[in-house]
């Protein structure tokens, strides 16, 4: 890998430019801005040629590591290969050229696709209705919790302000619940890494809004007591939220709706092969059981009696006049079950989600088809168990049962030389692999969380297993080579602590 560490500001030369802009005809408006909003000096922008820009970003892209360049067993992230046809379809001008403010009559095809994708996700998950509006997994969590809250409010059940979250949960679960204004109650895992039903029972009362779970959980273990947990939570009047981050191993095999879950979100970038963020556009569709459907967010796509599709914005359409009552929410007097949009939990995105991302997921589902979608989970589970069984003599396996799509080691089997999980992760980089997720879940001190996904060949898995064994041997014979790893990457071990304690966030602060 060629070393390249320049910032675009390093390339800047006074007066150099790639394009000439036309003269600014709007200078008169500056004086109309309040003094407090005007710049006191010119913005500091890099001054570079087009070639400078092209070389800069091409060089940076070559320092990157992605699924397209190598194996990426990052646990909990489902780094499967994203088929290139997804990009081709999303780039089609008929889709890419759409504008969110176009009249519904001119985008019937896009609205139909929105409906069809919702139906496909309903079939896969066993949920009655979907919104595709949320922009990411955690945004989906917040949306789902808002639906749960709206459900309780619509029934006048205002005491339910607490939500149960297992100690093995993804960190976003308690975070989303806190943003939604709910109080978090933790439930412990038992020795087998599963939710402890006995620990759960005393927590259930009429203040519980629901429980958030992911199944399989973050240890890659199937919560086998889920039916009993669902019955207990429902009996106390609470709802079950399913964190779809770990949906991949279940797709086409088991449906969260059938397990008793009332609300779920899906991470399209994990299970349905859309691009993994980097903070970029994402999608976290939320599915709900029939009794919650009226509380899904607006805007939403609704089918009129004549088969045309329109976008409901939450304004009640049920009242006698042609435009509806114009009231928003329960004020219009409709029943909590009314599906016109007036019972919605509110609006959570400007328009209807990231349509380009939805297109990619839809393409993935159609390209695989029903039979192949059913192969995804079993292959992902097979790959994870193959790695786990192959490495369990070299790495400490705290819970030795069959896993689903991922599993967790607790560091090396022999930790006598002081080699840590961080050292192992760094050393993997030297051998051309992305590191697994480390130090999560927090249940163990040296967690290494490995998820191979279904798209990797046996040869790739064997290559990874061989290197992991080699690293375990190195940890005993030459521990220093691990403690100072990586050695072959463009930058060596980074000082993450100083970066966190004394962050340098601006180019002008670099010296």
């Amino acid at each position: 890998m060629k070393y390249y560490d320049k910032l675009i500001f390093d390339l800047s030369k006074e007066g150099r430019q790639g394009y000439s802009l036309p003269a600014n005809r709007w200078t008169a408006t500056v004086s109309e801005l309040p003094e407090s909003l005007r710049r006191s000096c010119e913005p500091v922008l890099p001054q570079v040629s087009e070639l400078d820009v092209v070389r800069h970003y091409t060089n940076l892209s070559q320092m990157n590591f992605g699924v397209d360049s190598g194996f990426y067993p990052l646990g909990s992230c489902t780094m499967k290969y994203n088929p290139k046809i997804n990009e081709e379809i999303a780039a089609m001008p008929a889709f890419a050229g759409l504008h969110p403010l176009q009249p519904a009559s001119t985008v019937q095809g896009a609205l139909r696709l929105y409906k069809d994708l919702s139906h496909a996700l309903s079939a896969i998950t066993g949920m009655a209705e979907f919104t595709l509006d949320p922009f990411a997994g955690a945004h989906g969590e917040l949306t789902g919790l808002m639906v749960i809250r709206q459900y309780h409010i619509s029934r006048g059940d205002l005491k339910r302000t607490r939500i149960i979250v297992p100690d093995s949960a993804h960190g976003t679960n308690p975070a989303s619940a806190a943003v939604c204004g709910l109080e978090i109650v933790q439930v412990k895992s038992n020795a087998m890494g599963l939710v402890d039903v006995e620990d759960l029972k005393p927590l259930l009362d009429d203040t519980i809004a629901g429980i958030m779970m992911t199944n399989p959980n973050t240890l890659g273990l199937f919560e086998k007591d889920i039916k009993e947990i669902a019955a207990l939570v429902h009996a106390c009047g609470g709802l079950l939220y399913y964190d779809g981050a770990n949906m991949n191993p279940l797709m086409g095999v088991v449906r969260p709706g059938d397990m008793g879950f009332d609300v779920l979100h899906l991470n399209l970038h994990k299970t349905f092969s859309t691009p993994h963020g980097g903070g970029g556009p994402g999608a976290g569709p939320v599915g709900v059981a029939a009794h919650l459907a009226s509380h899904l967010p607006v805007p939403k796509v609704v089918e009129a009696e004549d088969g045309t599709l329109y976008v409901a914005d939450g304004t009640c359409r049920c009242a006698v006049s042609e435009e509806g009552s114009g009231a928003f929410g329960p004020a219009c007097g409709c029943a909590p079950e009314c599906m016109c949009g007036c019972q919605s939990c509110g609006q959570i995105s400007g328009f209807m989600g990231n349509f380009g991302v939805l297109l990619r997921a839809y393409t993935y589902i159609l390209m695989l088809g029903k039979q192949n979608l059913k192969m995804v989970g079993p292959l992902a589970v097979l790959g994870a168990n193959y790695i786990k069984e192959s490495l369990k003599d070299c790495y400490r396996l705290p819970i030795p049962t069959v896993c689903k799509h991922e599993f967790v080691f607790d560091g090396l089997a022999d930790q006598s030389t002081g080699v840590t999980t961080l050292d192992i992760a760094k050393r993997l980089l030297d051998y051309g692999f992305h590191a697994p997720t480390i130090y999560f879940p927090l249940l163990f001190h040296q967690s290494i969380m490995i998820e191979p996904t279904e798209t990797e060949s046996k040869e790739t898995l064997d290559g990874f297993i061989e290197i992991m064994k080699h690293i375990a041997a190195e940890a005993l014979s030459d521990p220093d080579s691990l403690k100072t790893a990586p050695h072959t990457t463009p930058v060596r071990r980074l000082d993450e602590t100083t970066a966190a304690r004394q962050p340098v966030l601006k180019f002008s602060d670099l010296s």
Partner: protein
Amino acid sequence: MAKTVEGLYYSESHEWVKVEGNVAIVGITDFAQHAMGDLSYVDMPEVDDELEKGEEFGAVESVKAASDLFCPVSGTVVEINEELEDAPELLNVDAFANWIMKVEMSDPSELESLMDAAAYEAMCANE
């Protein structure tokens, strides 16, 4: 092996308590700082905050994790260690020499529910 100090009280959530009169001096244990790794931030309560035993009073953050702090005894915060605001690494250097807060106890009998050094060491050995 993480060290402990005799004569202190210890909680299951890895805080230590040193008693001076009616004031409980609270910090995190050497085991806790070691498990967290290099600390980058300590979130502390404010003076005059009233805390219940078991209530969250702050958090410690490192490069690899964040962990809540739980108050080992009920009472009122009378002082916080402001040095930690700019130098959280002091907890890594010596977790027992660098306290986080001082609490005027409202019910000193709660101390009886905490562990001594030997019991705490035994608990850590099982973690």
